[in-house]
């Protein structure tokens, strides 16, 4: 019965010159599902992820950050000095080798080096090039720089996050825009590959981090474009559910969310609470009345949740079919979350210098072609192999490239 599983993307060849998360996390996905990914790097101006905190003491400075692996699993690394013409030449040869080139350097940087889409297209007419930026390769977006946190701000998503009537709030750091942008970038790669398989044509893709975030404004955007109504922050509440919020539980700063949408869920909720008299009052009998008296309702609910730790609130409610979930912190997710454990959301990798640690897999499990999570490359670890095996250059040429610091 045991069958050797062939990776989903076996044979796919990818060249990446990325910074931080956007392009690296996108090609990382391709790598985990079996593509061969060459990452172009530089020891002079290394990717910021090589300098991520934390860094493990006593290891070489560019190979001591476990966080680098999280965005670069299974890739090959080639260090190249692109300020030298022969460095640019090697990049071009690899672009010809690759099925797809993915990059998120500052808009215009590739063209300046003679590595823009038009340049590469001359060498390989059916090349696929996927360019990532915050707000576009051309026009007024070209100059918009920023981390994911800035992108969330200009997308409207930050504006919609916060308690009602209060200032916008956002989880500090860069997470949502970076993650969503990278997922869209990988989707772009796969869509372009399919187009080429069907038509024989390559293409240039100009993808942003901004547009995916605007796509997730949903009805909040349409309420303005169709009704002229600007939506505001609504916190944890929901116009069609009540109770719908995070409730304080037993313990230090412990919380559980509860989301009651249907009448059936409301009845089950009341049953779990032991059908106390207040649940039968007219003020709480229907969704409409609960919405009207929501402040009071939330107080009543919290009087109950305060008696139990959040896991117990969650399990009691879920056992009767009421959506509920505890507010988990990262330590709980990594140690006691049974889903994360059983589904392999985090997998152990064995890094040659750092040793064993956890790196994330994907939130989608493919039944026939599972992903494989490997450690991120040491900087320049594949220089020799790429030059001689993939590009077929001689050992003498390799030595010369090393001596003249083209392989930087």
């Amino acid at each position, binding site marked *: 019965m045991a069958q050797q599983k062939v990776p989903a993307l076996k044979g796919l060849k990818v060249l990446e010159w990325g910074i931080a998360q956007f392009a690296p996390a996108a090609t990382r996905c391709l790598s985990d599902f079996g593509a061969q990914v060459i990452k172009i790097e530089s020891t002079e101006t290394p990717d910021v992820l090589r300098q991520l905190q934390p860094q493990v003491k006593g290891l070489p400075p560019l190979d001591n950050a476990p966080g680098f692996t999280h965005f670069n699993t299974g890739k090959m690394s080639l260090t190249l000095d692109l300020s030298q013409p022969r460095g640019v030449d090697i990049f071009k040869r690899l672009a010809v080798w690759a099925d797809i080139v993915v990059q998120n350097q500052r808009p215009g940087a590739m063209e300046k080096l003679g590595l823009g889409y038009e340049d590469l297209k001359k060498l390989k007419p059916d090349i696929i090039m996927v360019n990532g930026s915050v707000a*576009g390769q051309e026009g007024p977006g070209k100059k918009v720089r920023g981390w994911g946190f800035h992108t969330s701000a200009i997308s409207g998503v930050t504006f919609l996050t916060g308690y009602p009537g209060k200032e916008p709030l956002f989880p500090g750091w860069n997470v949502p825009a970076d993650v969503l942008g990278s997922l869209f970038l990988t989707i772009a790669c796969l869509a372009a590959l399919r187009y080429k398989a069907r038509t024989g044509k390559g293409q240039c893709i100009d993808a942003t981090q901004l547009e995916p975030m605007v796509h997730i404004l949903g009805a909040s955007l349409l309420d303005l474009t169709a009704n002229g109504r600007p939506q505001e922050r609504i916190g944890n509440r929901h116009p069609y559910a009540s109770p719908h919020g995070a409730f304080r539980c037993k313990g230090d700063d412990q919380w559980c969310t509860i989301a009651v949408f249907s009448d059936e869920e409301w009845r089950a909720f009341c049953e779990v609470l032991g059908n106390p008299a207040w649940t039968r009052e007219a003020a709480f009998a229907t969704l409409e009345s609960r919405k009207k008296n929501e402040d009071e309702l939330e107080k009543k609910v919290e009087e109950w949740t305060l008696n139990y730790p959040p896991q117990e609130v969650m399990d009691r409610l879920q056992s009767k079919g009421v959506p509920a979930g505890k507010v988990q912190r990262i330590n709980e997710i990594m140690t006691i979350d049974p889903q994360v454990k059983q589904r392999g959301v985090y997998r152990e990798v064995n890094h040659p210098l750092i040793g064993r640690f956890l790196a994330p897999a994907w939130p989608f499990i493919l039944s026939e072609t599972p992903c494989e999570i490997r450690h991120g490359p040491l900087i320049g670890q594949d220089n020799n192999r790429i030059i001689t095996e993939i590009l077929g250059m001689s050992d003498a040429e390799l030595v010369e490239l090393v001596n003249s610091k083209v392989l930087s």
Partner: protein
Amino acid sequence: MLSGLRVLDLANATGSFCGYLLARLGADVVKVEEPGGDAARKFGPFFKDSPDPEKSLYWFAYNVGKKGITLKIDPPEGRRIFERLVKNTDIVIETYPVGYMDSIGLGYQALSAINPGIILTSITPFGQTGPYKHYKSSDLVAMATGGMMALCGDPGKPPLRLNPDHAYYQAGTNAALGTLIANYNREMISGKGQHVDVSMHDSIVRENNMWAYRWEFLHTVPNRAGNMQVREDLRTRLIYPCRDGFVVFYVDTGRVGRRDLKALAQWIHDEGIEGVLDRLNLDTFHAPAASDEVLKGITNQILSLTGRYTKKELEEKAAKRGVMLRAVKDIQDVLNYEPLAFRNFFVDVEHPELSTSIKFPGHLFKSSEVQDDIPKRRAPRIGEHNKEVYCGELGLAEQELARYQCSGII
């Protein structure tokens, strides 16, 4: 780019973003609704605030670009019709409770027996396996269990979710990506489909992966911190009020962060706002090592600056000086934002029945080859394409269709 791919989209509101993305890329996505219409049609906001299943903007938002048919898939007659549809389908997307599709004879094995190329993409609260697989969820619940809410909100107040339905979009995007990887494998390598098991919970856990290695190596557990950084080593403010709203800026570490702070300090100096920034050596400044007093001083100087101007003024001045300060744009600002207008990002979708057109987000990205891939098709009316699909494609006679409609199957 995905033209020629047929998708049957059985997903409810938690998963409709997946089919939306595939439709945006040119796939032929057919929404399969319960007779009477999908539950998402009951959610507002409604066009002109008139509650009507054909006027739900909530429904329009992520069913734009799809066709629509109605079918009850659980009775045997409905199941047989569904099986016939599956023969010419590449991808089925569903959000039923774990085990339901199997229980009505339409699980992956059954579909695969009809069409070995079929890709079944299941989007569920906690995935198809694990002790929570039968637990129910919603956006709020997934944001909580996935770890995002612990990072957002004021200390002492309830943890906050992000923009409404954030978890549905994360899961839907992951689902579209997993589906396209499976499709690549099918079209380029194996010729076979597979089951794609997407978990909403895992999607939010995955969204938070930046905190995992910090926890593992530094043993730090970040908590919500209002408008401050949640990273314990960066105790600086992120969101600053200005004259007509808010802007974001952060004091970062490393060479980019230092360059940024120096440019801001020069600006603050030019504005004549005095304070701690005048006395610091910004070439060596390292925020994590700074005292609370210094950081508070910097924050106050930035607040003095932002309080003087509107968000637009601040953004323009910052851009000239190379400072990474950005406005917290409201929805109207986003609609007017020049980079999006330059890219023709927003498209008008005609709604003849409402005698209007509505502006929607358009492309997922720009392509040099495929310009006309963005379907301008408005979200389907209930059963709008029944005749086209059932009579035109499956070859049902019109009387047969009428009979199924009478019996409530279609």
